[in-house]
């Protein structure tokens, strides 16, 4: 898997396939990106589970916080990690002890740990790094175009009006898959600090 540049069909397959998402590092503070993403994904019909040992006993949008992945107590399709790159490995190791294993491990925008990704992939888990599922969902459904964002997709079909709790179609025509040339440059600039 080329983690600098994902094909849209890879991301689309993941977002169409998973039903439950455990969000590690979910915050109850309503200006944190994890709160936005949690709320958006819940509104788009995903079964969301907040994981954060600091908030056990509280709820996030009516869902009770659990302290760890092991405490979820039921199978979960995807783990979305809202932690800095340096805190990814222990979460992946914890995920690899789950039975059944999750199908997908997703690391948030700005987070990347290639060694952790390789470990998860060796166990047959799909990995996405340095992306936000809210942004990717909004982009592939073109809901995000309301903000002037380049969805890099086209469709000549009439779209339904999105409402609360509704899953949107992600199956638009992608413009050449993954990324714009410019975003590739951004990824490259990061690893090449010249």
């Amino acid at each position: 898997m080329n983690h600098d540049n994902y094909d849209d069909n890879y991301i689309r397959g993941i977002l169409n396939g998973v039903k439950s998402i455990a969000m590690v590092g979910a915050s109850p503070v309503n200006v944190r990106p994890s709160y936005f993403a949690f709320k958006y994904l819940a509104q788009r019909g995903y079964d969301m589970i907040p994981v954060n040992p600091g908030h056990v006993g509280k709820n996030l949008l009516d869902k009770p916080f659990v302290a760890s992945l092991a405490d979820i107590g039921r199978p979960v399709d995807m783990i979305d990690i809202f932690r800095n790159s340096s805190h990814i490995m222990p979460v992946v190791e914890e995920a690899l002890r789950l039975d059944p294993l999750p199908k997908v491990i997703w690391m948030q925008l700005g987070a990347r740990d290639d060694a952790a990704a390789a470990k998860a992939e060796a166990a047959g888990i799909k990995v996405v790094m340095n992306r936000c599922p809210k942004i990717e969902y909004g982009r592939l459904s073109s809901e995000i175009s309301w903000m002037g964002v380049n969805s890099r997709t086209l469709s000549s079909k009439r779209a339904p009006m999105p409402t609360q709790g509704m899953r949107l179609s992600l199956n638009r025509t992608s413009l050449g898959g993954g990324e714009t040339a410019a975003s590739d440059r951004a990824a490259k600039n990061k690893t090449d600090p010249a």
Partner: protein
Amino acid sequence: MTDRLPGFSTLAVHAGAQPDPTTGARATPIYQTTSFVFNDADHAASLFGLQAFGNIYTRIGNPTQAVLEERIAALEGGTAALAVASGHAAQVVVLQQLLMPGDEFIAARKLYGGSINQFTHAFKSFGWNVVWADPDDVASFERAVTPRTKAIFIESIANPAGSITDIEAIAAVARKAGVPLIVDNTLATPYLIRPIDHGADIVVHSLTKFLGGHGNSLGGVIVDAGTFDWSKDNKYPMLSEPRPEYHGIRIQETFGNFAFAIACRVLGLRDLGPAISPFNAFMILTGIETLPLRMAKHCENAKAVAEFLSGHPAVAAVNYSGLAGNPYNNLARKYAPKGAGAVFTFSLKGGYEAGVNLVSNLKLFSHLANVGDTRSLVIHPASTTHSQLDDAAKIKSGAAPDVVRLSIGIEDKEDLIADLEQALTA
């Protein structure tokens, strides 16, 4: 499996536009409304808190405008765009995100005269200090860099003389200085040059010109390339620091590679107010559908007219970078292989007087202060667009007193040449 990448003309027609969800309307509707109802209180709060995607009020965004924005972002290869009321508004909004009072930005000396005025006078009262550099001397940009430099601003094809800027060389200076490169791509349009492919971090346009293309609507746009890391130091607090107006949200952390476009919308447009009207957004969007056809014709006509003028005995010099022997011809071949644009200048052996006579003798060319119309246009920059500059600055910016500027339209080229011929001999 990777889907195929549609070509430029397909994007010019389709990008951003989908049949209307409620009515099925295929052309993009003009959403001529100030405001949009919320589903409930929570929806309203999520929209205001930047947590949900959606429409609130047309000063912040509008669905017709959003189609225009996505279309241009796709054509330029950017991650997102923001449309505003004019090209000048785009420049204010961009720099407001980047500069604090006392900061500097470096700008190429060859710019549209209105931009030179805006940078020199209007921005001075904001405490934003422009430092001029020579686009034909890349080292002059390097020398202009100081610890207060926050951005570099150039035009891809410069107004009025149509000279071509070495974008890649200046992008390298910007990268070394750790500041974004802003390229005004108005005269080229993404059909001729895509500055992001050459290292630009931000692209701005006056949509009033070739993108709208019909001389009927003002507009401007800002395109975010998604390439700049705003948080690597604390140089760009609008993007990297918690924003008090949004309960402490950090824009880059929340919006990733389209954070700059979002900052321009929610911190710039929202608070400064230069919104584009939905009707203008619609007119410009309709214009863009034929951009590739028009630009090809503009360039073909411009080359023919430039060739005619260079062979005319009354003409002293023609500054069209598409002509062999022009000092910018190599750069034109590199950056604009499909054509060198349709705005250029020439000077007459009879000097200032002959220029003034020519303008009044023309019958098909319109004498007015615009470029990039379907109609052919003519102006004498020294007495109009560049009149506020002193003589030395006029010459440096390519608007010497004996210079006439043409913007070649999409009429039949034989008719344009015949009009110039009669006006030159009249």
